[in-house]
């Protein structure tokens, strides 16, 4: 069973439906009960601080840290990738989970947020290059575990991978057939 973390930020339905289309059973978890789960998905929409505060309030922060430190299967999406880092320019007073080094920064582009499709180029990965759907005003420029890059105003890191921890700045659940394939390969990896 794959658990989808509900941190009250919405957009849980589209992630669940994407796994439904792949025939993969999921369960939405509001409270951090993970004993029966093989994998965890952390979707995230909205502000960095709002998502982080909701995770802390519900007791997810420590559970997620433990899960990732134990190298269990994890997928973070959008803000669900950003909270893995130390913090974000979006909410400077709020600490992230700190699983990865670096800070999330505002994208320097004429139109912000970035909202639409962009090409994703993987580095040494099981996934194939393609176009992904993005909705974000912030991102990490670099990461020592970066596994994919894209460009919007400037190049940035749009996916990270370390062991069984995987996270994307884009929305695979909204990235058409290619996005479905990313999810399928993640499940089978």
């Amino acid at each position, binding site marked *: 069973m794959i658990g989808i973390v509900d941190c009250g930020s*919405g957009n849980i339905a589209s992630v669940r*439906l994407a796994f439904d289309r792949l025939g993969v059973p999921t369960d939405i978890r509001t409270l951090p009960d993970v004993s029966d789960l093989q994998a965890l998905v952390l979707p995230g929409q909205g502000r960095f601080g709002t998502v982080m505060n909701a995770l802390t309030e519900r007791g997810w922060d420590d559970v997620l840290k433990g899960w990732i430190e134990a190298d269990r299967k994890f997928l973070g999406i959008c803000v669900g990738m950003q909270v893995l880092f130390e913090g974000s320019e979006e909410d400077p007073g709020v600490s992230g989970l700190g699983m990865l080094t670096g800070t999330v920064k505002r994208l320097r582009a004429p139109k912000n947020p*970035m909202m639409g499709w962009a*090409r994703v180029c993987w580095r040494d990965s099981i996934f194939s290059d393609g*176009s992904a*759907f*993005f909705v974000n005003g912030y991102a990490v420029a670099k990461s020592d575990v970066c596994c994919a890059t894209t*460009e*919007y105003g400037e190049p940035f890191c749009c996916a990270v991978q370390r062991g069984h921890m995987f996270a994307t700045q884009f929305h695979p659940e909204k990235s058409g057939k290619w996005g479905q394939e990313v999810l399928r390969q993640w499940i089978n990896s």
Partner: protein
Amino acid sequence: MDQLLKRIIPCLDVDGGRVVKGTHFVNLRDMGDPVELAVRYETQGADEVVFLDINASAEHRPTALDMVRRVAESLSIPFTLGGGLRSVDDMYAFLDAGADKVALNSAALHDPGLVELGARQFGSQCMVVAMDVKLEPAGYHGVYSHGGRKQTRWTAKSWAREMVNRGAGELLLTSIDRDGTGCGFDMDIIEPIARTLPIPVIASGGAVNDDHFITAFRRGADAALAATMFHSGDVIIGDLKRALNRAGIPVRLDY
């Protein structure tokens, strides 16, 4: 690249849960099931789909919500629902049912604060403002409400700016003059707005061929929308995207 791939958006006018053809409530013709049609467009390479409930009412609300749920189950690309949204509760209902964005038109003109409330609660990324504009004899473009029937006090440029300030995440800019004419998008108003505002602008109204899209994208539109030219089968989205690609416009081809 400092810009995103240019988006092609088919628009489905729906009435009572069916796709209809013919605008302004005349000569409505049943064009089929919205979910089937939307899935076909996704397969053909559509980057997003817009559904406009042209006859939205409280009575039809359950049908519209049911359609949104079915679309969310089947589509793996983003979609927008417009028509009949008058309150934050209305917006919540459709976003909760699975719509990625909601589009406000007359309701925003009636109460611009609604856009602000929606943006604060759900985020600007799901707030689309649809605006219908028309060239006035005095030489500026005016904004119309109620399906283009009622003139407002706003000019297109001032309304677009106001909506950005209120938190709109995207503008769907339809030219009433061009709609249904086949003369191409009205870039005289779309270009200055798309080039000066910090949010994406979707060109709408008047397109019937590849060249109209090429011109719109060369002149700054972030996305372009059409209905009849896709429904009629005159233009297949995949063919249009390949034509755009040949013209040097960046589009998503791996669908």
